[in-house]
């Protein structure tokens, strides 16, 4: 029954759907939920999935690859360059420090130096997947400590490449060749390998810069969303494959592609497309880690295993704290970095497999380490929970909340959806007033043009929650809906209201009928798209007739205010029953109101600065005076 794919999918999904909300409820975070779900359906729980489901793990690892692509998308090259000191210094020190210390411990315990070094290097890795997911969930990624954590993880991802290269050299016993599947390029001599690696990296950067954007634009022009999604997936999978061929970490390759595309207009759309896949696959990854923990092994030597877990966590934690403090973290930040990164990561599984197949570690050693690694990962969400619940409140007091840590969101306060004739004018007006705007539009060519003008413009369907989120709807203040398709406007209003109720909506509508609908729906800032122009033209006509500028202006203003008020009044009576009689009555009311507007302006404008009544009174008094004079 295990090889029924649908059934398997059902089990994994069911586990996730059941466990994650539960974990959330208990305040534990999604990652722990997935891990527990894995244990529950694993060989030592309900035994619903086969043990050692390598395929699942492989598929799941792709979640990590996608995650790094998404992280890359968030990191502009300039930002990455700014982080170089942290990545090389902080990360390098952590890796070397941990590896050295762990190796020494291993040697002290009686291991040979080669397996000891291998073990050290493997243990130096932390779990990008768990940590970043947890930090993102807790909203800590952008804090100072979060950035340090990220730098270290990035350094580790990069370090995987040389470690993969070095591991086989540490072999103590020969293994039958073929067990370690050497990939295409790995069979080449060293310098050629290096060349291939460089070429691959160059290809990613070059293609990202010059090839991908035109391709995306062409795809965008088809207006087929699923093709765009397919292209995005194709990109990620393709890069992962390329990286495998040259023996690099696929995660690193996609990360690079992400960074290259971070500046592009398709960033938000790509994010929105890949995000759900990443989420699912990453969940799968955590589940399979949970399912993969060999509790039998743990049960046989519980003391050793638990001792190892605690020892590894403590050792890594110490090194991390020391390194962080050396690089001038505060006490609290240092503790946080240590807590977040003290587990061993998913790369360890890969490295352990390689170490076993290339004869660096024995099956027993690597088996035990796999259990240790998995348990340490399981411990991470718990440790983070403990940190935020018990440790942090105590640290927070003296260190006085450091608001500057939360990097003020880089997002603009206004999102303009639809950048056609209306939207672009609004956008320019706002920009001229120094208001930052993020523009969303479905026309790739237009977006391209806007970006060349230096505007923050992104391709995509604004009614998608992911895209809105990526464009910063959570922190924006105003959403301007300037699309010309009213059905799109309505959908967008629905999404925005449900998910971002704080956003003020400024809405373009074609005409009165649509205005009624929205006004009845409680949207107040509704603007009929032709009214402004019509009024301007009316002004010009009055001027051409020789009206004084000020009079013409006031006439237009008075008319407009009255007309606008009329729309609101009629909206109230238009109701939602669409019966014919009612519609007809509404039309009559509208006509009446339109006619009333004609008279209105005349009547009201005439009273402005009018002195006829003054004159009349003055004249009658003059007559009176004259009459009085005459009687004298």
């Amino acid at each position, binding site marked *: 029954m295990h090889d029924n794919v649908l059934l398997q999918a059902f089990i994994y999904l069911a586990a996730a759907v059941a466990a994650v909300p539960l974990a959330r409820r208990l305040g534990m975070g999604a990652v722990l939920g997935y891990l527990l779900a894995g244990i529950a359906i694993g060989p030592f729980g309900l035994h619903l999935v086969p043990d050692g489901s390598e395929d699942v793990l492989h598929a799941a690892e792709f979640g990590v690859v996608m995650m790094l692509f998404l992280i890359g998308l968030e990191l502009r090259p300039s930002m990455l360059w700014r982080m170089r000191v942290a990545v090389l210094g902080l990360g390098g020190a952590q890796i070397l420090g941990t590896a050295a210390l762990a190796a020494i411990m291993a040697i002290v315990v009686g291991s040979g130096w080669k397996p000891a070094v291998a073990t050290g290097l493997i243990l130096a890795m932390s779990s990008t997947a768990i940590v970043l997911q947890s930090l993102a969930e807790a909203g800590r990624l952008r804090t100072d400590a979060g950035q340090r954590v990220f730098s270290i993880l990035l350094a580790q991802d990069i370090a995987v490449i040389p470690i993969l290269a070095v591991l086989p050299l540490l072999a103590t016993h020969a293994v039958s060749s073929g067990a370690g599947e050497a990939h295409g390029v790995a069979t080449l001599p060293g310098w050629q390998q290096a060349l291939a690696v460089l070429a691959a990296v160059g290809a990613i950067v070059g293609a990202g810069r010059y090839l991908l954007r035109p391709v995306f634009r062409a795809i965008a022009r088809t207006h087929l969303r699923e093709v765009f999604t397919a292209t995005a997936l194709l990109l990620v999978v393709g890069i992962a494959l390329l990286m495998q061929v040259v023996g690099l970490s696929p995660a690193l390759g996609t990360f690079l592609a992400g960074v290259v595309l971070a500046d592009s207009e398709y960033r938000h759309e790509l994010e929105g497309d890949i995000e759900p896949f990443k989420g699912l696959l990453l969940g799968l990854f955590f589940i399979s880690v949970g399912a993969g923990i060999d509790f039998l092994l743990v049960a046989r030597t519980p003391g050793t295993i638990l001792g190892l877990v605690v020892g590894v966590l403590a050792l890594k934690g110490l090194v991390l704290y020391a390194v962080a403090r050396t690089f001038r973290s505060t006490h609290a930040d240092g503790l946080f970095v240590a807590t977040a990164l003290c587990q061993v990561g998913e790369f360890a599984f890969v490295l352990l497999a390689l170490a076993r197949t290339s004869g660096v570690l024995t099956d027993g050693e690597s088996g035990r380490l796999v259990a240790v690694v998995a348990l340490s990962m399981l411990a991470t969400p718990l440790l983070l929970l403990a940190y935020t619940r018990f440790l942090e409140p105590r640290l927070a007091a003296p260190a006085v909340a450091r608001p500057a840590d939360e990097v003020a969101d880089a997002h603009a306060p206004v999102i303009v959806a639809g950048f056609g004739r209306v939207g672009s004018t609004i956008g320019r007006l706002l920009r001229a007033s120094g208001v930052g705007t993020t523009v969303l539009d479905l026309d790739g060519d237009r977006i391209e043009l806007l970006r060349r003008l230096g505007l923050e413009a992104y391709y995509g369907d604004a009614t998608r929650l992911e895209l809105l989120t990526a464009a910063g709807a959570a922190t924006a203040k105003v959403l301007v809906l300037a699309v010309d398709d009213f059905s799109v406007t309505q959908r967008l209003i629905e999404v925005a209201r449900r998910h971002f109720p704080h956003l003020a909506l400024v809405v373009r509508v074609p005409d009165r009928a649509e205005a009624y609908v929205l006004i009845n729906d409680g949207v107040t800032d509704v603007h009929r798209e032709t009214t402004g122009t019509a009024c301007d033209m009316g002004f010009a006509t009055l001027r051409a007739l020789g009206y*004084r*500028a*000020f*009079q013409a202006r006031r006439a237009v203003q008075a008319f407009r205010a009255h007309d606008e008020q009329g729309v609101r009044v009629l909206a109230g009576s238009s109701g939602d029953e669409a019966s014919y009689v009612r519609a007809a009555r509404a039309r009559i009311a509208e006509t009446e109101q339109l006619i009333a507007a004609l008279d209105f302006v005349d009547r009201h404008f005439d009273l*402005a*600065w009018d*002195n006829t009544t*003054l*004159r009349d009174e*003055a004249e009658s008094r003059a007559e009176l005076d004259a009459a009085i004079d005459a009687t004298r």
Partner: protein
Amino acid sequence: MPRVLVLFAHPAYEKSRLNRRLLQAIRGLDDVTIHDLYEAYPDFQIDVAAEQARLVAHDVIVVQHPFYWYSAPALAKEYLDLVLEHGFAYGSTGHALDGKVLLNATTTGGPEAAYQVGGRNRYTMRQLLAPFDQTAYLCRMRYLAPFVVHGALRLDPDTGCTEAQRQYRSLVVALRDGALDLDRAAAAERINDLVGGA
């Protein structure tokens, strides 16, 4: 030759009887610029730089307006607020208007008798126009007595203001030609009397 700028402010010119005629009386004079503020700035978007240049290019500035609520219509005030910038018109570096001449030319509904201490309007025209006087003073300009046509509401629509028109015209011409005794003009209660006999 001094050059005269008439800043005209009437929000309902199409209904004006008196100011319209006064304006007609000075149309077409050489070296007299008539600048219709409500026509130029119906949105109150005054072009400050252009207006400053205009002020600099003239020597005598006449603010002509109907008397509304014992002052000038809103745009005339807006003009002063925006154009007489610190550093341009006043302050240690603001000397652009030094020595220029400023006066109001205005029409009131109320009769002359009302604009007296003890009268219905309780203050004289000069007292009511004190803000303009002081504004000129701060800008180191010479403020002259106002040109006033009282009883605007009772004027005969056809003939009633020919005298006022004639007076206004000779005032503007005298200002342009430098033919007016400025010391007397500054000290008078109304400038009309100084040109009346001329």
